């Protein structure tokens, strides 16, 4: 009994070691496989798991089931408006029909190269019908969508399902970059000049407005001051005139006397006629009569 068991175990190990790798194979989560017998595709396996094949006769080929990158090398392309752009494009897709894939392109690397060729040629056609500005900005999404639509059927013939085509980079060739830099410089200079000019403009505006306002403030004040002074003088004259109208003759007399006091200073010299009113009594006094020969 023991001997039988030992022999069975050894036998099983030998069979498992020799036949197992030939008859069984595991397809991983990331993979898909086809089983061929002398070149004929016998089985296409897309789900992961453990599978059986005929030992020594069947061969297994594995393909990636994951989303693959098809990275085209950067290419210098001419746009519709005859400008040159270096465009780097890549695509994402997966092998959905390993049988077809194997029949058309055999290996993954060959399939990749074919797919990249198809994408690159589609890209060239598409770029040639777009303006540079569209590729750079707004229509990039549309362009990529159109390329995808166009490459999809062609790549389906290879057993590939294409999900996405992207323009990774769109750059200017060096000689065009130089002219872009020159234009940028000119634009910046214009901008700097504009800023400075605007500064000067605002400066002049503010100062002129300030000067204007200051002048108006002063002039208004001057006007008000003159009016006020005039009012003062008018009022003074009025007050005076009111008072004088009570007896103009007396005012004239009194004011004259005041004026004389100012006019005749101590170093003045006056010549007075002897018959002036002042000396009325100086001459006309008659001491004998004791009378005045006045008015």
């Amino acid at each position, binding site marked *: *009994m*023991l001997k039988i*068991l030992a*022999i069975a*175990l050894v036998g099983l190990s030998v069979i498992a070691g020799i036949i197992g790798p030939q008859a*069984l194979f*595991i*397809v*991983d*989560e990331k993979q898909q496989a086809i089983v061929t017998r002398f070149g004929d595709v016998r089985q296409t396996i897309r789900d*992961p798991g*453990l599978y059986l094949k005929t030992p020594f006769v069947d061969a297994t080929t594995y393909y990636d089931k*994951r*989303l693959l990158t098809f*990275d085209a090398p950067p290419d210098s392309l001419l746009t519709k408006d005859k400008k040159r752009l270096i465009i780097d494009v890549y695509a*994402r897709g997966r092998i959905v029909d390993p049988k077809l894939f194997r029949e058309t392109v055999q290996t993954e690397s060959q399939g990749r190269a074919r797919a990249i060729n198809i994408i690159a040629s589609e890209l060239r056609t598409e770029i040639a019908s777009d303006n540079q*500005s*569209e590729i*750079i900005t*707004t229509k990039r999404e549309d362009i990529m969508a159109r390329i995808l639509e166009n490459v999809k059927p062609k790549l389906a013939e290879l057993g590939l399902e294409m999900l996405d085509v992207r*323009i990774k*980079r769109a750059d200017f060739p060096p000689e065009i970059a130089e002219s*872009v830099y020159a*234009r*940028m*410089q000119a*634009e910046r200079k214009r901008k*700097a*000049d504009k*800023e400075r000019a*605007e*500064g000067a403009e*605002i400066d002049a505006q503010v100062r002129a407005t*300030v000067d204007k306002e*200051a*002048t108006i*403030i*002063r002039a208004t*004040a001057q006007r*008000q001051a*003159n009016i*006020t002074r005039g009012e*003062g*003088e008018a009022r*003074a004259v009025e007050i*005076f005139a009111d*008072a004088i109208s009570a007896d103009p003759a*007396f*005012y004239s007399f*009194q004011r004259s*006397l005041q004026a*004389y006091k100012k006019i*005749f*200073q*101590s*170093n*003045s010299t*006056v*010549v007075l006629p*002897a018959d002036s009113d002042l000396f009325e009594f100086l001459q006309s006094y008659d001491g004998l009569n004791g009378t005045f020969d006045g008015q």
Partner: protein
Amino acid sequence: MYRPEEPEVNFEQVLDRIRGFFGKFRLGGKGGSAGSLIVIVLFLIALAVWMGSGFYTVQPGEEAAVRRLGKFDSITGPGLHWWWPTPIGARDVVKVADVRQLEVGVRGNTPILNESLMITGDPDEAGQPGEAPNIVDVQLLVQFDIKDLESFLYRAVDPAGQSIKDATETALRQVVGSRPIDDVLTDKKEDTQAETKIVLQKLLDDYQTGINVREVKLLNVFAPEQVKDAFDDVVRAKEDKARIINLADAYKEDILPKARGEAARLTEAAEAYKQERIAIAEGQAQQFLSVLAEYEKAPDVTRQRLYLEAMEEILPGITKYIISKEQGGSLLELLPLTNDAQLPPPLGANQ
């Protein structure tokens, strides 16, 4: 087709047999052979070692994805676990919570110009976007972690490497290409980051990478070396403008208050003058009226008196010549009427 359950079934059967065998051995059963025993023991040891290698631990912050016979089975969290060892099972332990980084346009401190230089979509004078493109130097940092380990491991090729790098460059260039350079350089960095993040996450989801973008950060945005001076000069020009406007405002703040002060001085002085004039006039008028009131009581006499009083006040201090017609005096005799001329002593001198 091979069923995964079968090895377990066989295993149970084998165990039963072994138990039975050991029982017989202890009883000293017949037919025992040392060679057979060694084979069986070795087999059992090998089986135990193989089974033991199925234990594994998952640290906090990690997740493990396990496959049985190539097929994804489940995700396990932190702790001690057992899973079928190779070749039946496979496991991938991944630090899902780790924040990974991707730099675009720079590696550490070394700029990578062919990654960082990109076209912006500046409009031309007519406002048509992309007609006057500029070139800008952008360095970007992406931080990401794994949100779906199954996709991360099994659905995309190199998700944390080429896939995210391609997607990041695509997203960044697409966003920058749709904006004018000043948006990216100054005013709208935040918008650019946010939009890039959205586009990038969308691409990564489309590519089934299982990656979650935590943050997209513009590290540095420069004008390219060739045009740096021109850009700096614009910054300087803006500062110059601000400075000039400041000075103009300062001038305004200096001049206007002074003008208002001066205006106040003028009007106040005028008001003072007015009040002064009125006051003086009123005083003088009142003075006149007062005198007049007295005068009217005896006009002739008062008039005479006032006249004489004035004369008294005036004449004493001054030089006087009194010429009498009756004495045939002529004004000519007195000429020249200057102080230093030799004149006959005036009459006043004798008084």
